[in-house]
């Protein structure tokens, strides 16, 4: 079972929710169960490890393939620049230039070069870290500073977890990046349900609508909502959820104590155990939502 914690707006509390849900799931797993996994797919700003300190067992480099032109073989025909859709190759009369930062690593230039002058070489773009902590398997993807594309690192994280059989019967919780663009799609792809975290403000509502469009309408996932920093002051998020038939599975109040625990890197259910039942109920509800939708 794969559950993804996502949001349109950033900073609504995805990591706060994902870490506490995972810790509650870890406590529940009995000896014979496979360990639940928590994957940090917010590879541009991975923060799970600041809350759940992992014993790292493995680090895998994430690389992308970029073309290298062998000047001795190049006939300057310009085919590579013609087939490249990302303007990553400039074919000049006597020289062929590659702009690696624009390359999407599709390999088309190497395939199409009639002189066989293009090879592809791996270039580091990030890493995946795998480890264990507190009855949990932990995986983290990290995009290298200066690299543009987050999606391949997210793909690599999911792939490495799958390769080690983390998925199987056990529960996997994925902390997604914010927004509604391609990295979010990659984090959500293959999920059994999504929990969208928002806050009861006009920004929260606006971005929740966009996240619902992605998770429910484009990807067809069962979707629940978590309302964080609920000060009771703005009912428009709850009204929207009621109107759209989206179940609100978790509510957290606007409380200084929660913000303080978060600011120091303490998972909420550890710092304030009174919230444990809230997260247990939310996990049950989310699992039920995912199970209902199973074929």
């Amino acid at each position, binding site marked *: 079972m794969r559950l993804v914690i996502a949001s*349109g*707006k*950033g*900073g*609504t509390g995805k*990591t706060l929710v994902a870490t506490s849900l995972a810790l509650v799931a870890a406590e529940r797993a009995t000896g014979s169960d496979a360990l639940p996994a928590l994957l940090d797919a*917010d590879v*541009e*700003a991975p*923060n799970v490890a*600041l*809350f759940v300190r992992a014993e790292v067992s493995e680090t895998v480099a994430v690389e992308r393939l970029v073309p290298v032109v062998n000047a001795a073989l190049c006939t300057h025909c310009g085919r590579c620049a013609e*087939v490249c*859709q*990302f303007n990553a190759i400039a074919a000049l009369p006597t020289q062929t230039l590659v702009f690696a930062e624009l390359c*999407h*690593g*599709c*390999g*088309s230039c190497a*395939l*199409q070069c009639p002189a066989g002058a293009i090879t592809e070489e791996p270039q580091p773009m990030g890493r995946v870290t795998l480890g264990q902590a507190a009855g949990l398997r932990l995986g983290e993807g990290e*995009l290298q*500073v*200066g*690299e*543009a*594309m*987050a999606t391949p690192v997210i793909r690599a994280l999911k792939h490495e977890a799958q390769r080690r059989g983390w998925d199987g019967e056990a529960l996997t919780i994925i902390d997604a*990046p*914010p*927004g*509604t*663009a*391609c*990295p*979010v*799609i990659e984090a959500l*792809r293959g999920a059994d349900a999504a929990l969208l975290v928002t806050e009861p*403000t*006009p*920004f929260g509502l*606006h*971005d929740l609508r*966009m996240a619902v*469009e*992605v998770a429910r*309408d*484009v*990807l067809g996932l069962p979707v629940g909502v978590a309302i964080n920093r609920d*000060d009771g*002051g*703005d009912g428009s998020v709850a009204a929207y959820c009621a109107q759209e038939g989206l179940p609100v599975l978790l509510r957290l109040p606007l409380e*200084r104590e929660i*913000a*303080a625990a*978060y*600011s*120091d*890197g303490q998972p909420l259910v550890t710092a304030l155990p009174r919230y444990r039942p809230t997260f247990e109920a939310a996990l049950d509800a989310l699992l039920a939502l995912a199970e209902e939708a199973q074929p």
Partner: protein
Amino acid sequence: MKQLVVLGGKGGTGKTTVVAALAQLMATEGRLVLADADVDAPNLGLLLAPEVLYGERFVGGSEAVIDETACIGCGTCQDVCRYDAVLATDGVYTVDAIACEGCAACHYACPAGCIDMEPAESGEWYRSMTRLGDLVHARLFAGQENSGKLVSLVRHQAQVLAQDRDARWVLIDGSPGIGCPVIAAVTGADLALMVAEPTVSGQHDLDRVLGVAAHFRVPAAVVINKGDINPGRSAEIEAYCRERDLPMLGVLPYDDAAMAAMRQGRTVTEASDGPLAQALRGLWAVLKPMLGQ
């Protein structure tokens, strides 16, 4: 004309709240053009009630479409696709438009020549008027690629408009993270203002986004938001900035006025004269000379 971009690394640190207040303060002194570069969660418009004067579809790339009637079922397209975007069901090949990267490798490799690349409309951009000045903004359609390209378009249109209007400032509201939309927002700016949050995540993500600004050679300055949530961490960020010779432009207090103003669709400096509004005025006072005017 000077371009100021506001970033944070971590989401929800208060970028848009700060941008809106700075815009209001700038507007009392000169002409500015606003650019909302957070195209997959654009919120600046919610505070500025923009009147859209012009809008246009954005074609960010293309996607492959297989002509089933001409397909010979050889599977070459699936072999060359590195994005798992070609699906085969009972020998019938189709393209998953969401997974398709638009690289055209299949189009060029198909021996039957039956794969076309069709333009993918992936968003819209708008030029609007607000009470504080012109706003260029955009919306990426759900789940689309090329948000970096759309941000570059928004930046370009804002610059063109600023030249037309003889504006003093272009003020850019960035997105969270460090990837392509952030790179597109920061490249070529005169100054990047980082809104940092005194939390472990805030510190960690600030360090990464400062790395991006340095990588693209854009000078950076830092302001701490909601500093009183954790004074110890706030002091750590100040020390971090001192060690690196990064200008620390102040500490903004936590203030309910931010949420109240947002709910009224106003900027904090319009809606309140409380501690946050005053701190934002102080921020603009130190920021303005850094923009060379």
